[in-house]
């Protein structure tokens, strides 16, 4: 059992998401940084879809009754166990009675903590992911509160190798980000100069960001005339509302919306998209469908290689 001593700024239970219900207006939810999420689970010896804690900005304090093993990946929150520092992107032992203390994210925003055996909650529509806007999943469809008790699944390989992920396999964090994009369904509605600005300007992330949308404060983009009838809007979409302020779409976003989509962030860069913090700078560059898929395949290869490495 894990007891939440302090829940941090916004900690929820997430897994690989609740796919299959967007027709009914239910967002997919799930870990915002799918790469860090998968790495954390593999490092902890879990099956790929196990439920983990997703922490935002500041992680909180968690008490463990029994001895177990866990892993942490994503933004570095200076994790300590009973006061001893633990390296980020690594597997570690958790002694009985231990307190895990996650601090503030130094760079980036989101950290994934996987415990061996996974966190056990009642799945809703095939997923444990918390969707706060729908009020379902995780613990009562909400973020964690002080005193919440989290059940842990059975750890199948407690003797698995303690492993530290090599730096070349980690997402690189900073205050300046480069995101690769492919053109969105309404890209050709925008003027040539708006498209040029989109790919050449440096954009500043605003402080308005939750699990649905990450807002860009400036600069604004020229918005074409005309109204778009709502269409399905997916993860990574870059929406341009009437004011010209870009919105980056995340997995708790409504499933359909009437904003023009100038571009989509590629799947391999979701791991960066989840980490954009207020004041960070971001530039977009266009890639082809093929290189977007190649980048995603490369990421999946790393995940498979790690899986294989830890099996031996």
């Amino acid at each position, binding site marked *: 059992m894990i007891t939440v001593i302090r829940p941090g700024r916004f900690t929820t239970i997430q897994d690989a998401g609740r796919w299959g219900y967007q027709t*009914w207006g239910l967002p997919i939810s799930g870990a915002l940084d799918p790469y860090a999420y998968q790495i954390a689970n593999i490092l902890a010896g879990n099956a790929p879809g196990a439920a983990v804690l997703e922490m935002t900005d500041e992680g909180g304090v968690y008490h463990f009754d029994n001895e177990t093993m866990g892993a942490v990946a994503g933004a570095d929150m200076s994790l300590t166990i009973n006061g001893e520092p633990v390296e980020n992107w690594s597997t570690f032992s958790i002694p009985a009675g231990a307190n895990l203390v996650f601090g503030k994210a130094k760079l980036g925003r989101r950290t994934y903590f996987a415990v061996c055996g996974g966190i056990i909650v009642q799945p809703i*529509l095939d997923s444990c992911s918390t969707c706060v806007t729908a009020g379902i999943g995780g613990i009562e469809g909400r973020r964690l509160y002080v005193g919440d008790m989290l059940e842990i699944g059975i750890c199948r390989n407690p003797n698995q190798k303690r492993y530290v992920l090599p730096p070349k396999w980690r997402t690189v964090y900073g205050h300046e980000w480069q995101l690769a994009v492919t053109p969105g369904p309404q890209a050709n509605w925008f003027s040539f100069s708006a498209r040029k600005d989109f790919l050449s300007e440096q954009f500043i992330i605003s402080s308005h960001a939750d699990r649905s949308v990450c807002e860009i404060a400036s600069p604004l983009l020229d918005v074409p005339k005309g109204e778009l009838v*709502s*269409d*399905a809007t*997916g993860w990574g979409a870059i929406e341009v509302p009437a004011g010209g302020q870009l919105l980056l779409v995340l997995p708790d976003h409504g499933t359909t919306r009437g904003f023009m*989509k100038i571009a989509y962030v590629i799947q391999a860069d979701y791991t960066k998209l989840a980490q954009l913090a207020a004041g960070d700078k971001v530039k977009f560059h266009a890639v082809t469908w093929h290189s977007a898929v190649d980048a995603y395949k490369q990421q999946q290869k790393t995940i498979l290689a790690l899986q294989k490495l830890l099996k031996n």
Partner: protein
Amino acid sequence: MYSEFPSVKLKNAGEGGLLVVFDNKITPRLYAQVRSFVNALAKKKLVGIREIVPSYCSVMVYFDVLAVTMPEMKTLAKEALAEMEPEDTQAYRILHVPVCYEGVLAPDMEKVLRITGLTKNELLRIHTEKPFLVYTMGFSPGFPYMGDLPFSVPRLSSPRPVIPPGSVGLGGSQTGIYTVKARGEWQIIGRTPLKIFDHNRSQTFLLMPGDYVKFEKISLAAYFELRDQVAQDDYIPHLEVIEL
């Protein structure tokens, strides 16, 4: 045939999304095409399709890029366009939704009557006379966007912080039902005791896009009676299937 839809556009929406765009309008006829296309595509059962999400006049296909390529997906979409059944041969469902249009359950009723110049009887006749098509769902899980009203009402200038589930609202020339406690800016003219979305129930969603909703006026007393029945899981929603 695909050539019968020269205006259909196939648009990339991320590397794992294909948006099939029929037009940029809201009409029942266009929506029938959307529905017919979804049926044709669903029949093909291609491995790698993660989800098919229809909207008013377009259909999104989300797929796994490790299993299918975009050119393959586009070919499949064109085949489905060619195999679309005529839209007027499809069965449809009508959910009968009891609504109380009285007192505190209809906080914006007076305002809506003032804006539209209708009497309450006229408004209720329009709202309960014929079934409304559910074009799409969104905003919150299971929230049905239904058209088409013969008048239009503005949204609230500042959203209400909490709208109880079951509230029936008007926004523009559409009507909808709030399914979870939410912030909202539609004008509320009544409330249904039905739970359109309930994750504790085996049938999580009472409605899906393409269904029709027939509103039925009930009294305040009937509202409370039905609400108790729903709470005790003792109420079977009246769902009519129209075969053609």
